[in-house]
């Protein structure tokens, strides 16, 4: 396996509503990531993740290319998924020897639509989508199943929200952050019982970009590259009633294949858009109490759709670069109730 590292990362401010167009949001982010990488354009490969359904603009993903600069024509690809899967494609491209450097970006504008309703369109179009179950209600089905099986309480979920929002105070790109009291949060009404607003990630408009480089190219531009030591992704059946929602088998297997257990883990950035999902993911990855989870505040404080998974990888890499972690786990999810999961193991040298 070739040595491939993440050498830079940048994020948009993740405002609840950002009225700029996708290129206006994305371009400063791409420029910042490119400038920090120290690698001059053009990149050998460019790959992006987004979904036009979010903002209701067909071919927004093509328009977004203006932010990357596609002239003269570049080698490019796109996934209708979180940008973490675009990063996976770029990693494969570099592994195959077809590229030494890659630019990966992702963006999502959720504010133009009703996000929980828009996400219903990703469901089984015959039996489920015609009922229009919103994403929060589906997550709440999972939350209840998990609470009842494990004996955890809504208070335990609120504690996850409080910790995330407190950690997000250090993240200038968090949609929300601050000090909150568990009792006050629990006094708020349900959005979809057993979930309250603090259990759900805030909807926002955002974008992120990262730059990948292979071997000596990475060492040449980065003092302490974040090496991808393992990366794997797995998917579960789409029918919710055929899955055990209280565990994440796909995360567990992806974690095993990526080699999570091959060494001590300093921190994990887990893409958990709902509080209970963080607990399910922790368990699936076998992360002990000593592992710092989501020091960035995680998706519970900034969840730019299609970009929040890639942001987890960027945030984890940032802590390798600054020396605060030697070995970090990054995770991304997609689909309802943690249907599809990607796990990436990053290490400093």
């Amino acid at each position, binding site marked *: 396996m070739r040595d491939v590292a993440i050498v830079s990362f940048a994020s948009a401010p993740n405002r609840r509503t950002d*009225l*700029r*167009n996708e*290129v*206006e949001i994305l*371009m*400063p982010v*791409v*420029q910042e990531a490119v400038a920090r990488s120290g690698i001059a*354009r053009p990149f050998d490969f460019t790959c992006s993740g987004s979904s036009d*359904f979010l*903002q*209701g*603009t067909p071919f927004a993903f093509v*328009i977004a*290319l*203006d*932010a*990357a*600069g*596609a*002239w003269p024509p570049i080698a490019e690809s796109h996934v209708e998924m979180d940008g973490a899967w675009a990063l996976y494609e770029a990693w494969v491209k570099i592994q195959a020897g077809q590229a030494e450097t890659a630019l990966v970006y992702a963006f999502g504008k959720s*504010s*133009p*639509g*009703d996000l929980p*309703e*828009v996400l219903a*369109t990703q469901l089984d*179009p*015959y*039996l*489920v*989508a*015609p*009922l*229009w*179950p*919103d994403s929060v*209600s*589906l997550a*709440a*089905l*999972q*939350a*209840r*199943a998990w609470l*009842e099986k494990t004996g955890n309480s809504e208070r335990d979920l609120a504690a996850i929200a409080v910790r995330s929002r407190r950690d997000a105070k250090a993240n200038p790109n968090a949609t929300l952050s601050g000090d909150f009291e568990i009792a006050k949060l629990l006094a708020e009404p*349900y*959005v*979809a*019982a*057993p*979930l309250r607003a603090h259990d759900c990630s805030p909807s926002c408009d955002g974008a992120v970009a990262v730059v990948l480089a292979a071997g000596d190219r990475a060492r040449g531009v980065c003092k302490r590259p974040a090496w991808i030591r393992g990366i794997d992704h797995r998917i579960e*059946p789409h*029918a*919710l*009633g*055929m899955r055990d*929602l209280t565990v994440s088998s796909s995360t567990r297997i992806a974690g095993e294949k990526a080699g999570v257990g091959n060494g001590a883990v300093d921190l994990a950035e887990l893409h958990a858009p709902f509080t209970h999902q963080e607990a399910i993911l922790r368990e699936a990855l076998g992360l002990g109490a000593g592992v710092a989870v989501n020091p960035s505040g995680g998706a519970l404080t900034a969840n730019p759709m299609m970009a929040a998974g890639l942001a987890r990888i960027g945030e984890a890499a940032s802590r390798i670069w600054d020396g605060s972690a030697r070995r970090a786990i990054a995770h991304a999810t997609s689909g309802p109730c943690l249907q599809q999961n990607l796990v990436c193991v990053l290490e400093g040298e």
Partner: protein
Amino acid sequence: MSEIVSEEGGILTAPHVLEYPYRRSVGPVLGRFFTELRAGRIVGLRTQQGRVLAPPQEYDPETGAATGSDFVEIGPGGVVTTWSWVVRPRAKQPLDRPFAWALVKLDGADTAMLHAVDAGDLSRMRTGMRVRPRWRAERVGHIHDIECFEPEPQATADNGLGGERQRAGELAMAEEAQKPVTNIKTPMRLEYRYSAGIATSRFLHGIAQGKILGQRCPSCSKVYVPPRGSCPRCAVATEEEVELSDKGTITTYAIVRVPSESIDVPLPFASVHVLLDGADLPMFSVVQECPLDQIRMGMRVQAVWVPREQLGPTLQSIRYFKPIDEPDVPAEKLQETV
């Protein structure tokens, strides 16, 4: 136009609707399921391993093997395996009052299906409770044939259930002569509030004053109109504003013979790319006041605006372009923009 709103920073937003009138063919497995629903029955499908999948699926998610056609009648009652409570139902959802979403494992099935439960109040819901379907009187072979599930009465099974069963049976007999369900209607409509962004909003505010504003790239000096705040060649932001003439040159055209909802001119008409004087990117419009067989590349045209008092922040403020009495621009001068 009244639906266009100028928000923070003068950025314009407008309503935008995506609508897809999907009609889906369902295949033999789901076709059987929907045909049975129409008759007031629910069927699952037994896999080779002996598990009953409900709703049925074409392939066993555990083995990937084709599931065949070993259909078995299940339910109609079942058990809630998990649920959530919707406080404020959305318009498209099955019920217009607070309700539960639930995964329901029907009697005789090994998997659960998603549907709504009309329990009236959150306090009536619990995991493990028994529910039964509330059938719609007029069924067409669709998941909506089940209006929702409802809590099973606490009393014995013949408390209304027998009658329900009998009625369903009668309907089944009447409908058995009908053809199997082969497709379903699943219309999709999503409503958005589209934002034009910074650069395009400035352009549209200019249009509302009868001005055409482009933006110049600080790197390659090309002028873009309508501007999107970026140069796609250089991948840099564009900020310098340039007022352009409303005269230009046709770089290419097409004769359109099918109607378009957004273009309000009589058929047939010519859609054109017009390179405005001073711009480096042609913009889309239509040409009128010109016989179609005289339209050509290099032809000089000018915008015809709506009356001043009708100007607004929309491209509809330019009704069309018309020919003007100026010599054609030679083709070689248009090479880069065709």
